């Protein structure tokens, strides 16, 4: 066994250790925290590269696969194993996760530099990396589940990192609960799998649950509705994957997760964690595809995979269409992520592990790039996220723009030179050949059109045209000059002044521009003067209280942020070439099949036609986006969207995300609230009532006892005691110690006795 297989545990253990050290450090030490986290990731990355190198050779049959495990927990006569597996799937994920994490960690140093909870952030990030790497190396569904939950926990912690923001706290809760629904499926699947096969090991020299004997056994059993047990378990596991990967209908948490810091969005909610669901499906692919009917292109078709495909395809188009009408830069990317995850699932369903995983890897790079780019943009625009208030940033942030453009073209699938094109094309190609239905292919193509369109819209609004943030940013930045020296107005704020000074709008504008509300101010005929004076006063306030250190124009981010962007951009381009139809290295690497460089495959009619078609789709999307948003730039931030003007109903539907949240609000949450109310009612009146009755009975009994104690026992006893005491006192008087008194008594008694005797005799 190669040393790396035995020591694969080091890869997740290092970040875990780093996280632990950061957590137990008494004084938050920023430098130490960042250094530890980054160093652990770099070492993990180097180890991952070793692991990757080890898997490059071929195993006995097909791809390289080595497992290492030992007994962990005993229950009854059985042992739960723990172990890890090294195969191409693991290795490629390890490299991707560690590499992207390293870059994002470095980026975070710049992005979070001003945050007071810097060390906590790195502690969570490192813990996340540990969990994610644990997910990747696990050879056991149990270890997998544990790591999976760690990842879920850190996701929760990091979304709610700025927990003092109510929206962030709510988003964290939403993410946690929504993914928990999926995890319930995964847990059930896990338990069922254990009940069926008696093992949770994926691969165990022929005894694992993903190996032939177990699969055959599970196929033979049927459960409800004639489903094979393997299919049912596969579907349950897919539920977990869908929760984590934000597939419809559990996608609602992912866009809200963007409340977290942007590096978190990049690392967890775009590149790695959300891909864990896709990875899970890829990992249990043998289970999903058990007993498949092999289609005409060698594609396995099973019920489970069909479900995966449909869910993926629906997610792809659904989320892509929502992204068209969003205005938050991160939210657009979030929906785009959901949509791309849908593509991955579809790829797994229609084309197998290699197809889905290829898109996962390329997507991880360009989506991380896009998110970090958006982080850079947000950072540069002073925490502004609304793309309507940006514009023209090309000029201010050239490096960010260049790298963002690469990411955008990769995501849109710009032909030939960008990785997204090759990976998405492979999915569409497989979908085209899918024997069951053609609809997923058509959905995928439409989704690709939307993708190109919304990315063009975003880039056009953010980077082209002129900067629209001035309208408001300068309103309080420059108003001192406008109020006191009307002569020196810059052209940028001339507009703000001209709209602000008419008397009817003045109050509104003053409210908008100043944090201090100017209510009760009613400018009359001489309002102009008043307003301008109060303006000057307030703006002086706001100017001193707000960011006096920042200038109000956007600025390029520091090198610690841009260098990771450049590296990621490089990979966003290059990675595509490892999986082109002409040189399907990635496919061969994962499946262990032989392949060779064959340029002619590119020009095969099926492949070429599809490539041309997809290129045409992309160009249509890009052109449409540019025509609508790039050519004629919006003038102000409040202007209506072009689509909104043309199709208000559809735009509103998309802007409100098909009202899915509202729908859940009205159904699931209302039901939940009702159930909670019912439980509360039952608790208060039924169980509480029973408790109350018992307590009253106890009280009554206690009262009775008290009564008896006080009036029967105590009183009787007390009276007895009292009388005894009194009689004792009375008797004690007789016993005065006077001997002669006693003698006297004796004498009297003697006389009495004699008299009695004498009388007695007479009688």
């Amino acid at each position: 066994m190669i040393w790396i297989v035995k020591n694969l545990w080091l890869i997740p253990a290092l970040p875990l250790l780093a996280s632990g050290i950061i957590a137990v450090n008494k004084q938050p030490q920023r430098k130490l925290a960042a250094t530890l986290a980054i160093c652990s990731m770099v070492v993990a990355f180097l180890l991952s590269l070793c692991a990757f190198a080890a898997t490059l050779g071929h195993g006995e049959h097909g791809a390289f696969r080595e497992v290492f495990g030992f007994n962990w927990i005993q229950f009854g006569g059985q042992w739960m194993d723990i172990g890890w597996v090294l195969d191409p799937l693991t290795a490629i994920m390890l490299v991707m996760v560690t590499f992207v994490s390293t870059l994002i960690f470095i980026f975070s140093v710049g992005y979070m530099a001003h945050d007071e909870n810097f060390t906590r952030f790195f502690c969570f990030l490192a813990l996340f990396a540990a969990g994610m790497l644990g997910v990747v190396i696990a050879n056991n569904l149990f270890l997998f589940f544990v790591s999976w939950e760690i990842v879920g926990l850190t996701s929760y912690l990091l979304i709610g990192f700025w927990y003092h923001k109510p929206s962030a706290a709510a988003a964290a809760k939403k993410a946690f609960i929504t993914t928990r629904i999926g995890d319930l499926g995964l847990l059930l699947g896990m338990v069922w799998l254990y009940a069926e096969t008696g093992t949770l090991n994926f691969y165990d020299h022929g005894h694992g649950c993903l190996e032939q004997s177990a699969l055959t056994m599970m196929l033979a059993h049927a459960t409800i509705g004639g489903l094979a047990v393997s299919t049912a378990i596969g579907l349950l596991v897919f539920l977990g994957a869908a929760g984590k990967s934000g597939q419809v209908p559990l996608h609602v948490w992912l866009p809200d997760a963007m409340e977290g810091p942007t590096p978190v969005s990049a690392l967890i909610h775009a590149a790695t964690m959300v891909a864990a669901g896709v990875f899970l499906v890829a990992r249990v692919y043998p289970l999903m595809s058990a007993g498949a009917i092999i289609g005409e292109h060698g594609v396995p078709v099973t019920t489970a995979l069909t479900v995966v495909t449909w869910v993926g395809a629906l997610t792809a188009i659904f989320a892509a269409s929502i992204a068209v009408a969003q205005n938050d830069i991160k939210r657009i990317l979030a929906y785009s992520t959901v949509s791309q995850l849908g593509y991955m699932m579809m790829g797994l369903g229609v084309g197998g592990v290699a197809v889905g995983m290829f898109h996962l890897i390329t997507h991880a790079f360009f989506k991380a790039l896009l998110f970090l780019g958006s982080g850079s943009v947000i950072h540069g625009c002073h925490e502004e996220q609304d793309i309507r208030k940006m514009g023209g940033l090309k000029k201010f942030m050239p490096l960010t723009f260049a790298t963002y453009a690469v990411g955008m073209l990769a995501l849109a699938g710009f032909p030939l030179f960008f990785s997204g094109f090759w990976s998405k094309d492979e999915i569409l190609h497989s979908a085209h050949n899918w024997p069951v239905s053609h609809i997923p292919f058509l959905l995928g193509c439409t989704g690709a059109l939307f993708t190109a369109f919304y990315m063009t819209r975003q880039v056009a609004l953010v980077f082209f045209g002129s900067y629209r943030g001035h309208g408001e940013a300068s309103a309080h930045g420059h108003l001192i000059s406008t109020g006191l020296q009307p002569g020196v107005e810059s052209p940028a704020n001339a507009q703000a002044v001209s709209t602000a000074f008419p008397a009817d709008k003045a109050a509104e504008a003053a409210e908008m521009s100043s944090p201090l509300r100017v209510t009760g101010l009613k400018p009359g005929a001489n309002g102009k003067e008043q307003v301008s004076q109060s303006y000057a006063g307030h703006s002086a306030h706001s100017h001193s209280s707000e960011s006096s250190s920042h200038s109000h124009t956007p600025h390029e981010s520091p090198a610690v942020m841009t260098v990771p962007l450049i590296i990621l951009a490089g990979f966003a381009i290059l990675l595509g070439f490892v999986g082109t139809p002409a040189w399907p290295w990635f496919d061969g690497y994962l499946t262990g099949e032989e392949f060779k460089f064959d340029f002619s495959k590119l020009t095969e009619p099926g492949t070429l036609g599809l490539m041309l078609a997809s290129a045409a789709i992309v160009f249509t999307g890009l052109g449409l986006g540019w025509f609508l948003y790039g050519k004629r730039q919006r003038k102000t931030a409040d202007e209506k969207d072009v689509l909104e003007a043309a199709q208000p109903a559809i735009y509103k539907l998309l802007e409100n995300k098909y009202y899915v949240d509202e729908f859940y609000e009205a159904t699931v949450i209302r039901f939940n609230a009702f159930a909670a109310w019912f439980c509360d009612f039952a608790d208060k009146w039924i169980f509480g009532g029973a408790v109350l009755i018992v307590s009253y009975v106890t009280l009554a009994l206690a009262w009775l006892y008290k009564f008896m104690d006080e009036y029967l026992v105590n009183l009787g006893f007390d009276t007895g005691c009292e009388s005894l005491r009194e009689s004792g006192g009375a008797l004690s008087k007789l016993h005065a110690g006077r001997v002669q008194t006693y003698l006297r008594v004796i004498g009297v008694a003697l006389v009495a006795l004699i008299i009695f005797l004498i009388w007695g005799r007479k009688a």
Partner: protein
Amino acid sequence: MTPLQGCLLVSALLFAIGFAGAVTRRHAILALVGIELMLNAANLNFIAFWRYGAHPEALTGVMFVIFSIAIAAAEAAVGLALIIAIYRHYKTSNLDEVKELKG
């Protein structure tokens, strides 16, 4: 009045005088003297009942009285010793003041 009745009358008188003395006298020694009188009244009764009884020839009465006098002597000795001890302890021989055995 028979000689026996006379004796008994004397003895009863003697007993009553002794009792009255024992009860009324405050001084311990005088109380003891009273007790001695009562004892002697009893002795007189013994003698009288023996002398005028069924068997004057048997010396039972005299024997009884001699024993009784011996015991009375011993009792007087003990009594006087007690009185001396009480006097030493309480610095008084007034019986009314000697009320407690504890001390």
